[in-house]
Structures are given as structure tokens and as C-alpha cells.
């Protein structure tokens, strides 16, 4: 059966020029510096499912989120939304309406001078989905009720709400254009755990009820495990392992995925200790040659230091690792 793909990324890259200003650069005789935030990433998101991308700071996951909704244009490769190139999709209101985004910080993503009613109604007005004020107000009320707030809350300003409630307003706004595809960039990272549980439950309920498709970006693997159908692990702008979430959690193959899973403090860790992997994420401006993970990898050998690993299919999982390809378990 062919999968119904909502979003397809094919070898997408996004580079940023981070050189110093021209004059300083010329005087100091420095070359141009390019930061490869995303470097050849491919994935697909099937309708009604959740693909999560995880990784540490600077791995490029938020850049992918912005690429996915067309806020950045790719430096290379292609992103297709409903079969259309993302730039073309952005130009068509009825396609653009079908994607939306939820941001991390509910304090920064809501205009403090607008009433909640206007914040939530903005996409409805922008896409001219409803015209009469009465209809719009009724729709806003329904949306607020749907995310667990009261219709009367529309009269208030964002500062009157707690972090969790603000994130509910963000979700209501994201849903107001009746999208099918939502990009969620760390939607619960700014929230306390009990509030995080409320938001995650709400997002799952909405997905089931409205058949939403999520691209979920997070650094928190336990949140990701709770939310995802498929999971991609990113490191220095690349996807090192991607596949069904259950499979990756049960049987992580890439050494970096193993490191991440081992590093998470879990409630079951009471009284146990472990040996963490040393080293830190290198700069994406000067990534190590070969496999970018090799300086920290316990399995790295001469090949890993020189040859960039290609993505290969291992059962249901795609993985970029020489050791996994060769079935190597030591350096």
C-alpha cells in the first residue's frame, strides 16, 4: 500500500553565512564561513501520524521545523507539501492554510497587546474563512473550548494566563485555520511536568479527533517516545537514524542514539550509576571529517574518520553508520 505522504523532505540542506563583515574579513584575510545547520536531510511524514526529530542544541532540528513550513528556503534539496514544492505551496492560500506551527515559548509567541479573541481569529481573517463577526466569535469560542479554555477567555489578554494556558491559546490559534499539518517546535519545553502532561494529552486528543499530522521537534526523548509514530535522531545537521519510534527505542542501532538513550535520567534509575560518554557536540562550522560523530563514538575506526557514512536501510530503520553497516561492535 502506498503511503499517503503529507510532507516529504529530499536531501534538504540549509546553510547560513556566518562570516564577519566584508571589510573585516578582507583585512584579516579570512575565508567565508558557512554554518551547515541542515546538511542533506531526508524524511517523510505520513498523514495522521507523528514524526519526531530529536537531538541536542545546534543539531538543526529547529531549522528543519522552519524549513518544513517554508519560513526558510532550502539551500539545497527539496521539500514537498502535498506533492507541491514548499515555495509553491506557500503561494497558494488554500495549501498554506493547511499547515501551521506551534512555537516553544508561549510568552514570546503571543502578541501581548492583542486580546486572545483577536489572536485566535487572525488566521481566520487572514484566510477569509469566515466573514461575519458573529461567526468568527462563535468559531473562536469553539476553538477555545476545544483546547480546554472557556469561550469567555477570549476577552482577556495573554498576560492573564499561565504558561500552560498560553500554550493552549497557541494551539487554538494554530487550529483556527483548520490545518491538517502542524509543526510543533518544542511545544512543552518551557512548561512544568504536570502542565506538560496536560498539553501532550491535549495534542494527542486533537490528533485523534481531527486527524492531524504532526512534525514534532523536541530534545526530550521521553516526551518524544510518548508522542511519536516515527522518530528521527539528528546530529550536527544530519539524520543519523530514522524509523518507527518503537523500533528505535527497543533496539537503537546508531551509537549516538544509544548515547542519548543512556544519558537520560529516568525514574527507573534510582540508585544506579553509569558511565557517560565524554566529549561535546563539535561546531557545525567546522564539522569533523567523515562521520561527524566519530570523535565521541566508541566504535569509530579509520573509515569513520575519513568517509562520510551514507544512509542505508536496515529492516524498517534507516541509519547512517559504518559500524552498523559492517555489523562492527568494537572500534
Amino acid at each position, binding site marked *: 500500500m502506498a503511503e499517503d505522504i503529507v510532507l516529504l523532505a529530499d536531501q534538504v540542506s540549509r546553510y547560513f553565512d556566518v562570516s564577519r563583515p566584508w571589510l573585516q574579513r578582507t583585512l584579516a584575510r579570512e575565508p567565508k564561513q558557512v554554518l551547515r545547520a541542515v546538511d542533506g536531510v531526508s524524511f517523510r511524514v505520513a498523514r495522521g501520524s507523528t514524526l519526531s526529530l530529536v537531538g541536542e542544541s545546534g543539531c538543526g532540528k529547529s531549522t528543519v521545523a522552519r524549513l518544513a513550513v517554508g519560513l526558510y528556503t532550502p539551500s539545497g534539496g527539496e521539500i514537498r507539501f502535498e506533492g507541491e514544492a514548499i515555495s509553491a505551496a506557500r503561494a497558494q492560500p488554500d495549501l498554506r492554510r493547511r499547515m501551521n506551527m506551534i512555537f516553544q515559548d508561549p510568552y514570546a509567541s503571543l502578541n501581548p497587546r492583542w486580546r486572545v479573541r483577536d489572536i485566535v481569529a487572525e488566521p481566520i481573517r487572514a484566510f477569509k474563512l469566515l466573514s461575519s463577526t458573529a461567526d468568527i466569535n462563535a468559531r473562536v469560542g469553539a476553538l477555545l473550548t476545544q483546547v480546554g479554555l472557556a469561550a469567555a477567555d477570549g476577552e482577556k489578554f495573554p498576560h492573564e494566563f499561565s504558561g500552560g494556558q498560553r500554550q493552549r491559546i497557541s494551539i487554538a490559534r494554530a487550529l483556527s485555520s483548520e490545518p491538517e499539518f502542524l509543526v510543533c517546535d518544542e511545544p512543552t519545553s518551557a512548561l512544568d511536568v504536570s502542565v506538560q*502532561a496536560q498539553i501532550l494529552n491535549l495534542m494527542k486528543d486533537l490528533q485523534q479527533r481531527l486527524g492531524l499530522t504532526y512534525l514534532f521537534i523536541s530534545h526530550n526523548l521521553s516526551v518524544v517516545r510518548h508522542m511519536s509514530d516515527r522518530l528521527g535522531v539528528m546530529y550536527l545537521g544530519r539524520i543519523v537514524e530514522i524509523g518507527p519510534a518503537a523500533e528505535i527505542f527497543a533496539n537503537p542501532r546508531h551509537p549516538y542514539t544509544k548515547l542519548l538513550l543512556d544519558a537520560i535520567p529516568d525514574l527507573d*534509575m*534510582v540508585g544506579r550509576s553509569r558511565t557517560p560518554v565524554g566529549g561535546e557536540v563539535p561546531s557545525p562550522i567546522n564539522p569533523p571529517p567523515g562521520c561527524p560523530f566519530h570523535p565521541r563514538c566508541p566504535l569509530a575506526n579509520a573509515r569513520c574518520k575519513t568517509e562520510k557514512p551514507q544512509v542505508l536501510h536496515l529492516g524498517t530503520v534507516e541509519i547512517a553508520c559504518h559500524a552498523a553497516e559492517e555489523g562492527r561492535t568494537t572500534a
Partner: protein
Amino acid sequence: MALLDVVDLVVEFPTRRGVLRALDGVSLAIEPGEVLGVVGESGAGKSLTGAAIIGLLEPPGRVAGGQILLNGERIDTKTQEQMRPLRGKQIGAIFQDPLTTLNPLYSIGRQLVETMQTHMKLSDRDARARAIKWLEEVGIPAAAQRIDAYPHQFSGGMRQRVVIALALCAEPKLVIADEPTTALDVSIQAQIITLLKRITREHGTSVMLITHDMGVIAETADRVAVMYAGRVAEIGPVAEVVKHPAHPYTEGLMGSIPSLTHRVDRLRQIDGSMPRLTAIPTGCAFNPRCDKVFDRCRRHRPGLVPSGKTQAACWLYATEAANG
């Protein structure tokens, strides 16, 4: 005797609209060599407890009641001048953001040397040798060369290692670590937690580990105090609190953390949010969100009572005899 004994601590903030009680009767004790975790959501008062102990409450905040005893001696009544020799020497501190903890204008070696010479009689040469030894101990590579580097030349994880060295270099008996790994990535967090555990065990230092991350506590602490709305909701051995929580809030909190090992369809959720300081409910502060609430919870505030191996501030476990 406990190294640190906090008894019925009350911290208040006078404001124009009245006095806000941010900590209301917090009691906890830390034994020598013990790691006590303090966990709670934003605004529960966990950082404030740490700040009160080390005497760094931001004015107009003030200790309005209770006692803080270090080695049996009251320290909450000391003036800033009297507290100064204690800080660093008796109580060390590690804060969340290593960049603001370190002075950007001084090399890390100078900061270490200054701290040690303030508290111990050391010659410049001895202090420098010790500083290098400390940097090696916290895992800074090529410590002898890096000692003259400035904070901005280190990565976040390395800076936090320097902060740990700085907190421990005068060999305090107690270290207050306030969210020491929150600003760090998970793989670096694991390194720092392991380092903190090893180094405090080797030096016999007690730690008060303040964090919102129950996973970090589960891995590091011996005992844990769960705070809610400026009060201790439950305190006990970490394994008991995690596996068999007694207080309904602790139970909800544990259930709301997504697990890595078993997937559930829905997370347990506690509806509502923590009350603001201006609107703490009478009786038990948790009663409007509690699913086991009964009449007494709304009228009287529960004290800590034993329940199994932990102590919980909950009327479910109070016998009539225990509270007269």
C-alpha cells in the same frame, strides 16, 4: 546530628498589596555526606529555600519565622558580614547558569585562587597548585595550561565543571546546587551529574540538589523533598517517593512524567495549576486539584505525618491520635 536542619522556615515578601508568604513552614534536614533532592514545579519555593539557607534572599524577601541550623548553630539570624566567612567555606553554591556565576573579567585560575585564599592560609604558589589539582579533578583537560583561560573560552559543560571546582575548592561541608544541569544538553548533563556525584562522595560533602527534573533526582539523591506552593508535600528516601508516593500530588507528578521504558496512551494529568501566592487555598494547598479531597482538607492544613517509609503532609495518613 544533622549537618543542616531547617525548622518551620517561613519566608515572606512584603508588597504594597500585603505580605506574600513564599515559604510556609518548610522543615528538612540533611545528614553529613547525604544528597537531598528538592523537587517541585516553578514557583514551589525550592530555589528560595536554597537562597534562604545560604543567606542570599533578594530583598525585600526575609526570613519571617523558623530556624536554619548548620552544625547546630543558628545561621538565619546572622548578618551579611557574619555570613561571608561561611559562604564558600561551610556552604558552597552551584547555580544554573555557569556564565553568570563566573566573573568574565578574571581568568578561572584567579577566581579559584581568590576563593581559596579568602578561606584558607595558602601561599600564591600553593593556591595555584591546588587550583590546577581541582581543575584536573573536575575533568578539565590540560588543566595546567587552561588555568589562565577566561570563562568565555570554555563550553557550557566545561564552565559548569569550573563552577563545581569553585564551589568545592574551599572544601565546604554542604553544597547547594540549584538546577546545576538545566541549561545543559542531555549528554553533557549526564557527565556533570556523574561528576557531581563522584566528587561529593569522595570529599564527603552533603548536597542539596534543587531541580525540577525528577529523573536527575532519582539518579542522584538519597532522599527527596517534594515541594508544593511553598510547603513540603512529601519527604523520604528517593526510591520510596518514586515507586510508592504517598501524597496525591507526588503521585500525580510521577504519573505525569513520560517514561522511556513503558509507553502509555495517556499521561496522568493533574488538572489546573499551582496556586499563586496571593491565592493559596485554606487547608491543604493542593486540595482544589486533589482527587482524594475530603472535608477536612479544605479546612485544616496537614502537617508531615509518617506514611510507610516517607512522610507526607496529607490528611489521608493522619490518625486521630497523631494530631490530637
